[in-house]
Structures are given as structure tokens and as C-alpha cells.
């Protein structure tokens, strides 16, 4: 079986990809998907630890993360639709009215 470090490396690569995408990309939906990617990168790490430590803690955590991610996806997509109706744009740079 592959050692723990391989799983963690995969998790880290996925997380960094997500984070980089979050920062670099301008399309809101892409950004949103990057967030999901980071969450799942963490999930990978949790599952790996659960498997190697021989308990269920990590797996239970992943359930919670999935539930929260689902709820977040519902709210987030609703916000994106409202935003698109309002601004006629999905560019994240158009959403900057929260500054002085």
C-alpha cells in the first residue's frame, strides 16, 4: 500500500491548486469550484489519516465537511445567480463595492 505521505502530497497538491485558482481566476464560478477543490483536498487528508490511524474520526469529519459544502454550494450558487442578475457579469473584479 502507498505510504501516508503520498496521500498527503496529493492532498497538498490539490489544495494548492485550489488556492492558486481562487486567487488567480476571475470567473466567480471557477473561484467557487476552487473552493470545493480545497475542501476536497482536506477531505483526502482526513480520509488518509483515518485509514492509517485505524479509527473513524476523520471519516466522520468528512461527512460533516460534505454536508457543510453542500449547504454552502446551495447558498453560494444562489448568491451567484442574484449577483449575475444584478451586475450582468460574472467577473469577480466587478464585485468590489465593499470599500471606502
Amino acid at each position, binding site marked *: 500500500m502507498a505510504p501516508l505521505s503520498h496521500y498527503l502530497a496529493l492532498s497538498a497538491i490539490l489544495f494548492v491548486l485550489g488556492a492558486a485558482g481562487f*486567487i488567480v481566476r476571475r470567473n466567480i464560478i471557477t473561484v467557487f469550484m476552487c473552493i470545493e477543490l480545497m475542501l476536497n483536498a482536506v477531505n483526502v487528508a482526513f480520509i488518509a489519516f483515518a485509514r492509517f490511524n485505524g479509527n473513524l474520526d476523520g471519516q466522520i469529519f468528512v461527512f460533516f465537511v460534505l454536508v457543510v459544502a453542500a449547504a454552502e454550494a446551495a447558498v453560494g450558487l444562489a448568491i451567484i445567480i442574484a449577483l449575475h442578475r444584478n451586475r450582468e457579469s460574472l467577473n469577480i*473584479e466587478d*464585485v*468590489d*463595492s465593499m470599500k471606502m
Partner: protein
Amino acid sequence: MNLEILLLLMVLPPLAGAALNGILGRHFPQAAVSLIGCGAAGLSMVFALLSAWIYSTSPGQPGPFVHEYFTWIQAGELHADYALYYDRLTLIMTLTVTVVAFLIHLYSRGYMEHEGGYYRFFTYLNLFLFMMLTLVTASSYPLMFVGWEGVGLCSYLLIGFYFRKKSASDAGKKAFIVTRIGDAGFTVGVALLFWTFHALDFETVFQRVKELPPGQLEGILTAAGLLLFLGAAGKSAQLPLYVWLPDAMEGPTPVSALIHAATMVTAGVYLVARSSVIFAHAPMALEVVGIVGCFTAFFAGTIALTQNDLKRMLAYSTISQLGYMFLGCGVGVFAAGIFHLMTHAFFKSLLFLAAGSVMHAMSGELDMRKMGGLWRKLKTTHVTFLIATIAISGIPPLAGFFSKDEILAGAYEGPLGKPWLFWLGTLTAALTAFYMFRGLCMTFYGRSRVDPETAHHLHESGSKMTVPLMILAFFSVVAGWVSWPKAWNGSEAFDHYLDPVFAPATNFLRDASPEHVGGLGPGALMGFSILAAVIGIGVALWWYLKSTDIPDRLAEQWAGIYRLLTHKYYVDEFYDWLIVRPLGTVSEKFLWQVVDEGAIDNVMVNGAGEGTAWTGNLLRRIQSGNITSYAAWVLLGAVLWVFYILAAHG
């Protein structure tokens, strides 16, 4: 009944009266206000008499009676109780204060009837009486200081009683600020005593001073004595802090009588007399007391010669008489000083109250040049004023003669007496007789110079005012008889009565000073003092009744001196130039424009605002509104956090 309860019953009624009138008096009718005010003062007097009687028949007499009611301050070594101290000196003081205060309360019912602020007046008057009683019954310097400041506060409130008048409120402030200089001396002096003796109550401090051999700690005691005397000079209007008292005449006349003639201003004399043991061990300080007193007596006497305002003349006369009291204490005959304090309280309050009666009749006029011939209309006022004038001039057998004579005799042959003090005091006695009779003649005798409008309203005051005058006139006659002089086969009973209080001090002084040999005998000294009074009176009658053109001619001939005297030696102007004006300039140019506007307003207040705005400007660049950058910050933070944890635990 127990003395400790009686003492509380003596001190507290005026406080209760002040509280009642002060809080609810606005809604009471005048009759209720005066009933509460006078009732409180009356109760005080009754209990003062009762305590005197109980004390005099108690087995502990003549030692001091001290009772501790509760601990007031306890901080390390510093320990002060609310405790009252009662001995023969306290007895004299409480009786004098309560009797005079009660009579003046009665008089005020009539005097203040149409003046407005009736309840306010009685509130202050009662509060004053409470503070004065606290001052004289206190058993320690801190408690005495409470009374000391309390009477100062009441004095300020009452001088500025007509606060809508600028001159009155200014006079109040002047009195408060000038006495503050003295109070600073008082506090430092008390601190010095505490530092030396580690105690503040009279019993312990005096006991420790008594145990000192001659000469030991003399430097510290001299400093403490001089500082205490500075406090006394402020409160009792002595050189150089006397300037507030003449201005204090802006207050209602009963106030001038009670506070600025009979009681509060004598607090300084009481302080010196109470601390007699300390002064005895610091003869240099005591000598300063005597010399300052003597000079003040003379100095104020000369100013009084040319005053045309009746109350101001009486104010300078008060300063002069207070000088006599300090002269008495300063030459080591403390009992004579206290004796004069008592007789002076009667005749000087009578003079002021009679002056108030005149003022009442004259629709507020106080300029003696616009009076004259008033004796026809103001019969009672005239007779009582005449009695008080003779009493203060020192003609036997009225009260002022006995006390003044004792002081003058002491100035010659007392432990620290010097002939020149006697001669200057005697000269002042002549001046006193002269200016008092000048005032009497200008006010009551001669051709009437009253303007017709006022003359029309001229009337004697009602019985509310004249009865207290008559009672005080009675005391002005008989108060001196308690100490019939030795030269007339008397026993000087009053002095011997106070011996237990002052003996430690006077014996110590007598042991230290050389025996007086030769010189004038007591009879001759008395002769000189009577002669001085007679000359003063004679000249006054001659100049102001017979040849009334002489004063004007003299004023023209000696124009320089006359102007110097009418302008009160330009002392007010000098203080204005030396202290008030520079203080004003420094306050305006430095404290206001540099410190307040520059340092506080600009640097601190505006600086705080501008600094916040500047930092905010810098920090708001972070708030770009760009979600991407926020995310980058979060990420950066998370990465740093991970590194920190790795570094800390790794």
C-alpha cells in the same frame, strides 16, 4: 447627662438646621426658616452652657476632657479620630461663639426680611456655626482643619451672598484665595508636626513637646510655628494677608458682625493660643507673632483714620484689634489675647450690628459724609453704638479697657515683652479711640448731611434688631469685669481660670526669659493706656464736633500722607502689580496660549484625532473590496500560522 453627649448636642443642631433649611427651606415660609435657623443656634447655645456647667462641676476638671466618637482616618502611622476636646479654653470659645451667633441669628430675622434669599442666608449661617464649633472643639489638627476650611467656605458663600453684584462675588473670591495662601502654611506646618511627632492629636503632640528640654528641636518647632502662624495670619487678616477683610464687607452686615468680626477671624488667635506649648518652645516664632500683631494693629489703625465708609472703618478696626490679640499671644500672655478675643466679640459685633441698623435706616447708605445727627431718630442704635465705641476705645469700666490693658501690660512686662511694643500698642490705642469717635461723631452727631429723600424714610429698626443690640451692649459693659486688674486690687480671675491651659507655655517662657527689673509699674502702664484713649477721644471730639474745619485743613496741609492713608498705603495696588497682574499675564500668555491651546488643544487633542485619521488612511488601503486580495491575505495568514506552529512545536 454625659459631657460627650452634650458636646454632640451642642455641635450638631446647626448642621441639622442647615440641612433642613438648605434642602427644604425654599418651600418654607420665612417664619419657619427663621424658627429652624434661630432654634438651631439657640439649642447650640443652651447645650454650650450646659456643657460648661457639667464640665465645671466634673471631677476631671481642669484637665481636658477628650472623647473619641469614631475613627475618622486610619492610614499607617496617621491616625485621626472624630474626637472632641473640651477644656477651659474650649469652654470660653464655645460660649462666646454660640452666644454671639445666637444673638446675630435673632438680629438677622429683622435685617434680612426684605433682602431675598432668606432661607439660603440662614442655611449658610447655621453651617458656619457648625463649622466654627467643629473648629474650636476639634481634638486634633486635621479635624480642626475641617472646621477651618468649613468656616472659610461659609465666609466665601456669605461674602458673595449678593452674587449678582460683581464686586460682591469678586470679594468672595478674594477672601477665599488670600486665605488659601495661609491655609497652605497651616497644612505644611501640620505635616511638619506629624513628621516630627508621629501624631496629630493635641494631647499627644503637646505632651511630646512639653517633654522636650529647652532648645531641642527648636528649629523644626520654629518652622512649624511660623507656618501655623501663616495660616492664622490668613484667617485672622494679619499683615501681609489682611487685604481680604475690608472687601469682605460686601456681605450682609450680620455676616460682617458674626464671621468677619466676632468669630471666624479670631480662629487664628485660637490656633496660636491652642498651640501655645509649641510656640513656647519656639520663642522666635512667638516673637514674630507679637511683632506682626503689633505692626498690624498700628498699620490698620492708621488706615481706619481716613475711611469714610462706616463698615470699612470697622473692618480696619477689626484687623487692628486682631493685631492686639496676636500681640498678646506673641508676648506670652495668651490669656490676655483670649480675653480680648472674647470682649472684642461682643463690642465689635455690636458695632457692626448697630452699623447695620444705621444702614437699614439710611436705605443702604454707608458713607459717613452723608450721615450726621442721626441720634435724634435712631435712639437705641445710637446708645448701643456709643457704648460699644467707648468699650473699644478702652475707657474703664467697659469691657475693652480690661482686655486691652492686659495686653498692653503684657507687651511691657510679659515674658517676651518689649517696651517699644508697649509704646506702639499704646499709640494704636490712641488711634483707635480717635477713629472710633470720629466715626461716632460723623454718624450720629453734628449737622445732618443726610439727603432729603433718605431723611424722609429715616426710622429706627424694629425690636427684632434692637433687642440683640441691647443684649450685646450689656455684655460690652460687663464682659470685662471677669478679670478685674491687680492694680485695682482685683484678682484677674479670667487669667487664672485659663492658667491650666496656658501654664505649661507661660512657665516655660518665664524660665527662659530674664527677669524684668525696674521700669514702669502696672499702675503707670494702665495710666498711659487710659491717657492714650482720653487723648484720642478728646482730639476726635474737638475736630469733629467743635472745630470741624481742622480735619479738612490738615488733609490739605499733609496731602501726601492723607492720600497715602485714603488709598490704604496702595497695598491693593501693590499686590495687583506684584502678584495679580503677573499671574494674569503668565496665565494668559503661557498657560492659556502655550500650554492649553498649544500643548493640550493642538498636540494632544487634535494630535490624537489627526494621528487616528492618518493611521486609518494608511490601513484602509488593505480594504480594497477585492475578494481575491482578501483570500490572498487569508491564505498568507494561514501559511504563517502553520509555520508558527511548526516552529513552536516542531
